[in-house]
């Protein structure tokens, strides 16, 4: 049966260099985002970098002078920094939700947005992680939070929710970086094969010599599956732990068992809103409509509607429990929440989080991109105020009239708040130019399959 071996001369004749690569459209379109920056991009980057610089200077000033320059005064010692910490931790939840939970549910529509959402998770955690440190009077002692052997033979108190926070946030930061990077490796190989100059060097190092062999893909699939399985309970635990910072105290308005699910829903809510706020302009500026379609935005709007209902329900439950418990300080706290000195924040919170997103009941609103964008911005504002209401409002009226007080954010705190948005935007802008903004290999997987069907393929 076997044909006779060909003469060596014919084998030699078959050796020829491979022809020039035919590139795919997905590669070209998505890698094009990393092309030469426009004037607008450079101007925006300059703006955010200078804002970060301003905030950094303010922080140095605060560290030098002391926390008195923040608006902290008796009895309120948790202010904008803690509010902003909780806010950014919340934003960080969308990436893992999209990447891990929707992966486990095999929701294919996540492919277009998972990369950017994962990136936002990493940057939001990087932003959030700064705030407990900014909030420290002696920031240079932050390492006291870690259990390390020391001369005093002291260990940290593992019974404190603040220490659970240290473990939860640092685990979350590490795992979201790992998740982001693992997903990125095959796309870095795509970039490596097409780049020149310093980018070629950078991507060659970061891509680790990935070649897309079957064995590598199989290991990669397994890795993503396991990381998703690990990250799903993790993402639910992180904001639960953050909520226990409050719920395990006895402050009126904080001491509630509903806090963990309430915070997790709020985190997903704000995270999706942030993904929309960022990706709607990015899609338009870089012409990615072919990959990120209105269908994706509509699905995310549905998520916002769902989590808005959960958050609204939690607001109502808090009021009901305050009334039904018959505990006078609880009742007072919730009365003051709506009609006390922080009433504006409360009504911003209720209207932005529970009321405006109801517009997404209508398909016309979910598919009208300007509406989606406006609602997503409102949700971001509302969720920041939610944390402000919970933290500052509750601390201003505790049980004893001796610990009643008022709090107004100082210019130092507001500068650092602005700096946090700039810090996040700075990372995201750099990410746009350095890494593929959409998971190219996942887009291709769908496209090649679709082509097989179009050609009447066998599968």
């Amino acid at each position, binding site marked *: 049966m076997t044909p006779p071996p060909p003469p060596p001369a014919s084998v030699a004749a078959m050796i020829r260099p491979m022809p020039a690569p035919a590139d795919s459209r997905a590669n070209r379109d998505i890698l094009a985002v990393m092309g030469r920056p426009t004037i607008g991009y450079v101007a925006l980057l300059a703006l955010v970098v200078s804002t970060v610089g301003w905030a950094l200077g303010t922080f140095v000033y605060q560290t030098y002078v002391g926390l008195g320059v923040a608006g902290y005064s008796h009895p309120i010692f948790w202010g904008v920094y803690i509010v902003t910490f909780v806010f950014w931790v919340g934003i960080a939840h969308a990436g893992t939700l999209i990447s891990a939970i929707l992966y486990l549910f095999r929701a294919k529509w996540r492919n277009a947005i998972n990369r950017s959402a994962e990136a936002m998770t990493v940057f939001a955690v990087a932003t959030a992680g700064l705030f407990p440190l900014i909030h420290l009077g002696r920031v240079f002692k932050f390492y006291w939070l870690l259990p390390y052997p020391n001369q005093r033979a002291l*260990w940290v108190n593992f019974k404190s929710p603040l220490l659970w926070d240290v473990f939860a946030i640092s*685990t979350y930061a590490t795992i979201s970086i790992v998740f982001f990077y693992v997903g990125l490796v095959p796309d870095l190989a*795509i970039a490596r094969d097409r780049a020149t100059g310093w980018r070629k060097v950078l991507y060659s190092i970061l891509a680790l010599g990935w070649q897309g062999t*079957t064995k590598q893909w*199989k290991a990669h699939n397994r*890795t993503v599956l*396991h*990381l998703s399985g690990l990250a799903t309970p993790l993402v639910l635990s992180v904001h639960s732990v953050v909520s226990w910072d409050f719920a395990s105290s006895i402050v009126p308005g904080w001491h509630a068992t509903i806090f963990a699910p309430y915070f997790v829903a709020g985190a997903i809510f704000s995270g999706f809103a942030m993904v929309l706020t960022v990706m709607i302009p990015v899609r338009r500026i870089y012409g990615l409509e072919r990959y990120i379609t209105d269908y994706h935005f509509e699905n995310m709007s549905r998520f916002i509607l769902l989590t808005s209902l959960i958050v609204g329900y939690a607001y109502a439950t808090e009021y009901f429990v305050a009334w039904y418990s018959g505990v006078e300080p609880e009742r007072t706290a919730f009365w003051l929440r709506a009609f006390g000195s922080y009433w504006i924040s409360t009504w911003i919170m209720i209207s932005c989080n529970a009321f405006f997103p109801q517009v997404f009941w209508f398909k016309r609103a979910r598919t009208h991109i300007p509406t989606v964008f406006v609602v997503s911005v409102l949700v971001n504002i509302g969720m920041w105020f939610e944390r402000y209401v919970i933290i500052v409002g509750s601390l201003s009226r505790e049980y004893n009239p001796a610990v009643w007080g008022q709090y107004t954010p100082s210019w130092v705190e507001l500068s650092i708040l602005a700096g946090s948005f700039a810090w996040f935007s700075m990372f995201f802008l750099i990410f746009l130019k350095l890494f593929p903004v959409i998971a190219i*290999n996942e887009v291709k997987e769908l496209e090649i399959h679709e082509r097989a069907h179009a050609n009447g393929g066998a599968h």
Partner: protein
Amino acid sequence: MPTLVGIFDQPGPVAETVRRLRGRGFRELQLYSPAPFPELDDALDERPSRVRWWTLIGGLTGVTAGYAMTIWMSYDWPLVVGGKPYASIPPYTIIAFELTILLGGLATLLGLLAVGKLPRVKADPAYSPRFSAEEFGLVVRCGERDVAEVDALLRAHAAKEVNLVEG
């Protein structure tokens, strides 16, 4: 030994070709694809990826380390509250949980590197940027006398071209 590279457009025919080649006793096969495809996963090796053991060992290390660290530290520097035991398991479960995830996840990453033989400095001679575009490459190392047979088999299964590379 000559190395033949068949270039394909679709994963289905690749999987079929691999089955045929393995049926005829060719063992030195390598497959490059632009994205993961379920039909190719088990084409060369049916066993599940060994990454799963890394996750398991990492996770178990994490949970053990979490409980061991917190309990040992509680006894090393006791905080005496009433007549209660020094170590309280419910809050320590949170630390143990976080460390399970942390070490499990990091071990999974190491597993990916170990199983995928990463990082590697030099690309395979048969690798081409075409495989990070949209094409599939099936690499067959075979004896010189088999070149014509493999070439015919690849072309018969919708390989749009077959190249010979040294190495």
